[in-house]
Structures are given as structure tokens and as C-alpha cells.
């Protein structure tokens, strides 16, 4: 990865992904080797909407690299609610930290932040947009089970607003993967995501039911259908019920099918799936730490080499 921000998964090449995932594997094998790697550096955790897990995962990753972390506290009591622009906020925080992680309710917020500051910015979710660091840990989980080529991956649930889906679909175009999208008509992939997939010539198919494709899948990636997307609660229950899986659903699935979920789940994966050999979602969540360590390490290294390049030019 030459760039020092991670804003969308569409920016990631196969090389970028493999660089981070190789490093994540090394980190997982020998975490102590990375323990003091970024001692003295500070990571700002800028969460403009609540997300305990993603925030803790980055916090843990940074601390395991020897970094300190700073946060914004409760968004309600911060200057954000006093009407300060995001542009100003990130420029101020740039002076406090060596890198920043940004979670924001508006699509494009991370792109804006990346334009405003020179320290590395990681998009940890921008509205219904993208969530590329989640994608890296998803890919790591898939790679450890199956490798990343010659696969059929089913992605099911809320594909319209699911930022983890948008990022994962984009990243998978770097590999030899058939992507099957399973959702109700009203929650199909947005036009912009389909546009990118078609541009890359990706193999994609869209379905309203899981059953006909289940037996050809290597991975089933389930996402939550959010109640607040439906004006009518009955309609929500009807739709959500159809995209729920349990151990029975998976009875005829291939033995080595991996079931994933970005978590938190509500009831789209029944607890009896946890006991099957398919369940990989907790492992997937745990992979967040080594993958985010590898990501931060890579971005800080890139940022460092960019600084050095500037110095060399100035010295001449």
C-alpha cells in the first residue's frame, strides 16, 4: 500500500490486501515482536457515532503496537454538538495524533478528512458508505479457511445500507471469486456499488433466496437487516424472518462452508449455528486486532516513508 489513508476498499489492490494480510499473519504468530514498534506514537479515535467494538478493536490494536490512544469522549458533550465542522475538528486533532480512525454518520466523511489532514486516516465506517478495515479482517478470516481465489461467496441481508458489504464486495473483485448477493428486492446493492463491480468485470449474481445457491458456497456472509429501515414493522418481520439462518438451514450446506457476520447479530443467525463447524464470526471479530495492528503498522510505515521522501527532496 503506497497511500497512507484507508478510505474505501475500492482503493485496495490485490497487493495492498496481501501486504496487510501477510503482516497480520505474522502479528498473530508472534505478537510480542510488534509490541514496541510504535511506542511514543498516538492514535486518535474519532467516533462521531457510537461503536464500542470497532473502537475497542482499534484501541487494543494500537496499544499492542505500543501506541497511546486518545478519544473524543461522549459526542454529545463535545464541540461537535456545538456545531464545529468536521473539517475543523480533524485539523485540530491532526496536531494531537500521528494517525486517526474516523467513524462518522455521513457518507464521504472519511474522504473529506483525508483531504484535510496529512496524518494517516482510517475510515472506520461512514454512514452507509464503506468500512474497509472490517473488510481486511473479513478477508483474513476467509483466507485462513479457504485462500482468496477460486471461491463462491454469498453475501446476504441488508446489502443496500450495509457498509461492510459494500467494502467487501469491492475488495473481492481483486480475486477470482463468484459473488452471490442474497437480499429482499428493497435492500439490493446500491447502484454505485453495482457500477464498480461491473466496471471490474466481477462475477456477480443477485438472488432473493438463499436456498438455490447455498450448496455452491464456500462462504456465507450474513448481515443484519435493520428494523429502522422499514416504515412498517410487520414488513420488517416478514423480510427479516426470510433471511434468518439456523442449524437446519445449514444441514445441506457444504461441509466446509464458513459462516461469517460482522456482528453484532440480532436474530439473523440462530444460536444453534454457533455449535456447528460452520460458525466463524467470533474468530472473525477476534481477527480485528491483529489485522488492525498490521494495517496501522503499514499505514504508519507508508506515512514515514512519505515524510522521508519529502525531506530528501528538500535536502537537495
Amino acid at each position: 500500500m503506497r497511500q497512507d489513508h484507508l478510505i474505501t476498499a475500492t482503493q485496495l489492490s490485490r497487493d495492498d490486501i496481501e501486504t496487510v494480510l501477510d503482516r497480520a499473519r505474522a502479528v498473530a504468530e508472534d505478537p510480542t515482536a510488534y509490541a514496541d514498534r510504535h511506542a511514543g506514537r498516538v492514535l486518535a479515535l474519532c467516533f462521531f457515532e457510537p461503536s464500542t467494538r470497532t473502537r475497542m478493536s482499534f484501541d487494543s490494536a494500537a496499544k499492542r503496537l505500543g501506541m497511546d490512544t486518545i478519544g473524543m469522549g461522549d459526542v454529545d458533550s463535545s464541540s461537535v454538538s456545538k456545531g464545529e465542522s468536521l473539517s475543523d475538528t480533524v485539523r485540530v486533532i491532526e496536531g494531537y495524533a500521528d494517525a486517526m480512525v474516523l467513524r462518522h454518520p455521513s457518507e464521504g466523511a472519511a474522504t473529506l478528512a483525508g483531504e484535510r489532514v496529512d496524518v494517516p486516516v482510517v475510515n472506520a465506517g461512514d454512514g452507509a458508505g464503506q468500512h474497509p478495515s472490517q473488510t481486511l479482517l473479513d478477508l483474513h478470516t476467509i483466507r485462513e479457511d479457504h485462500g482468496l481465489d477460486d471461491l463462491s461467496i454469498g453475501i446476504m441481508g441488508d446489502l443496500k445500507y450495509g457498509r461492510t458489504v459494500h467494502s467487501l464486495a469491492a475488495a473481492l473483485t481483486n480475486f477470482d471469486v463468484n459473488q452471490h448477493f442474497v437480499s429482499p428486492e428493497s435492500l439490493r446493492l446500491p447502484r454505485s456499488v453495482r457500477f464498480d463491480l461491473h466496471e471490474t468485470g466481477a462475477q456477480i449474481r443477485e438472488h432473493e433466496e438463499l436456498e438455490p445457491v447455498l450448496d455452491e458456497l464456500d462462504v456465507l456472509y450474513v448481515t443484519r437487516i435493520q428494523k429502522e429501515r422499514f416504515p412498517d414493522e410487520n414488513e420488517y418481520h416478514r423480510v427479516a424472518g426470510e433471511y434468518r439462518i439456523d442449524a437446519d438451514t445449514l444441514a445441506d450446506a457444504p461441509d466446509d462452508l464458513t459462516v461469517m457476520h460482522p456482528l453484532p447479530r440480532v436474530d439473523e443467525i440462530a444460536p444453534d449455528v454457533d455449535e456447528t463447524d460452520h460458525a466463524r464470526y467470533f474468530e472473525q471479530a477476534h481477527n480485528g486486532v491483529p489485522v488492525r495492528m498490521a494495517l496501522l503498522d503499514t499505514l504508519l510505515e507508508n506515512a514515514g516513508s512519505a515524510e522521508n521522501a519529502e525531506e530528501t527532496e528538500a535536502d537537495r
Partner: protein
Amino acid sequence: MSEHELRVSKIRDGTVIDHVEGGQALNVLAILGIDGSEGHGVSVGMNVPSDRLGRKDIVKVEDRELSQSEVDVLSLIAPEATINIVRDFEVVEKNRVTRPDSVSGVLSCPNRNCITNADEPIETQFDVVADGVRCDYCATILRADIAAHIDV
């Protein structure tokens, strides 16, 4: 000049924007920021029969030539348009519009949750893609209704 075009009066100096898709003439004026208060003579022909387009609109603006950025945006809603510069009743230059790679600060993003609609000090930026434009910030693609999002 053909009989059809004579329905719109001739101008001495200025710009004739021809081969505008039928119904887009008022949007062309909106892009150019012309509402009549500037004092330029403006003639608009709408739904004039055209060999090439079936029906077309024509806009003639006296004493005004167009900047490149105006032509760029024009190309998004009138990709077939020809721009004729008239001096002393003669067409001295005739140009087809070409689609730019991107447009800045002219369109508003239709995605209400886009950061460009959130009171930030930021200019919208759209990439021109195959059959529309795409927000650089939230990736939303705008196709048929570009004219409705012109922000001038």
C-alpha cells in the same frame, strides 16, 4: 440558417446554443445563471423540429460568450449541443460540447446523508462516468435527473 431556426430571432453578437435536447432550454439558462435580470437579450426556442434530435431546443444569448466550465456542465444535460459564437450576425465559431472528466461546485449531491450536504466548507466534486456523474465523496451516481441538481 434553416427555416426552423428563423423562428428564433437572429442575434448580432453573442452565443447560440443549438441542438439542446427538447425540454432542457430552461436548464441551460439555469446553468448559465441567466434569469433575465442581467439585461442580455435572450431568445429561447423550445421543441423546434430537428433532423438530428427529432425535437430540440435553441437558446440565443446576446452579448455573452461562454466560459469553458459553463460549456462543460452544459455538456452533461445537452451532450449533442453545438455552441455557435456570433459576431456581427455571422457565426465565427462552431463547437460541439465535450464531456469533461469531472465537474466541481456546480451540482449538489442527491444523497442527503452525503458529507457535502452537511454544512462543511467543501465544494462538491463529481466524476463524469459513462452515463451520468458520480459524487467523489459518497459515490452516489446521478443519471437522468442531473438538471434537477444543478446548484448555481
